[in-house]
């Protein structure tokens, strides 16, 4: 799980072009949207593509997105449960 979280941090920083943010700056339990990392709806689309492209996971029900993308840890848990990480 820890290795996956570290990998996800790097991928998210790269995909979302989070300039000046290093993996150490992001706690696995920080909120990604709203007050935490401050991501927005466009970032959510980027994350959906990231999951599909890198982990072969499609989020069929948009309502699940809010839970899955709550934190880096929830994404990692979702990948572990459903994916081929």
């Amino acid at each position, binding site marked *: 799980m820890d290795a996956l979280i570290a990998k996800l941090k790097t991928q998210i920083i790269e995909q979302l072009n989070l*300039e000046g943010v290093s993996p150490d700056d992001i706690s696995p339990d920080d909120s990604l949207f709203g007050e935490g990392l401050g991501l927005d709806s466009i970032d959510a689309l980027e994350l959906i593509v990231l999951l599909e*492209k890198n982990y072969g996971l499609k989020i069929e029900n948009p309502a699940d997105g809010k839970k899955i993308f709550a934190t880096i840890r929830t994404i990692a848990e979702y990948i572990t449960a459903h994916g081929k990480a």
Partner: protein
Amino acid sequence: MKAYIRGIGQISPQQTFDKDDFLDTVVGYNTNMLFCIDPVYKEFINPLQLRRMSRTLRMGVTAAKICLTDSGIEMPDAVITGTGFGCIEDTEKFLLAMLNNNEQQLTPTAFMQSTHNTISGQVAIMLKCKEYNSTYVNRGFSFETALLDSLMLIAEGNAHKILLGGFDENSVNLHVTTERLGHWKKEKINSLQLLESKTSGTISGEGATFFMLTDKEDANNYALLKGLSTLYKPENEKEVEQHTIDFLKRNNLSVADIDLVVYGLNGDVRTDGVYYHLRDTMFNQTAGAYFKHLCGDYYTSSAFALWLSANVIKKQDVPEVVRLGKAPLGAVKNILIVNHYRDINYSFMLVSQC
């Protein structure tokens, strides 16, 4: 139709983002592909917004911000831009992702920013400006059409202060593709010696230039933009000459009234002849200047010429690096810009002292 130039912001292959450096620092390039010198964008754009912006968007938004600050006008009545290719790098990125991913898993950012009106839209969002917003894409007439629209809005009293922009970005893919069409020089040259090359082709460039146009006289105005005219595919040099005479006449000026002619010379031996014809006939007693050795050639490079002319009028200084020939030069009251893009789109602008 006329308008005063109240403020200017420009990002180019020179240090033009610094308004106090009017070509005091000149950068020469030993390449045929010129790119802009980037200011520290974080000083102009919120880092949260910056991270998603492509290079051209950063250039355009920053040039617009510099222009707004320079003009002292916070909210324009309209935002109008002109661009030949728009945000070409994002277009390339998006199309490449489509190819590589077999039209699946496409990210939204590059697609959103690949449209031509991305910059005018982003500037409007940044300013919360819900007024008239338009982008013109007319190849070598893109900036001129945006300018024409601005002048008409001001003439009709529908707008009093307009943020006008011209921008195009260079890219390796674009350069390589158009190189096959013979647009660029085959041999590497020093950009500052562009006119000495005497071969076909020129150097590619880019830039983002914004002007605040207004109908109000003000001590801070740079210059008066007195006239604009375009000419499509003239048959010969005589037609260009006649068009120039008619243009001056329509603006109640004669050749003797012009103190400086800014030519769009780009070092292409195939298409520079018309400029030399004008210089050696009509304007053989008039001082000349040129500018594409500083910014390269691109669809909206006439915006660079307008930046140069407005600054010359305001500062009453013609930097040595742009001088063409040795004709004596006194006070500069009237400047004529003559530019063409690939011998197809000809434009003429008159810039005068306020």
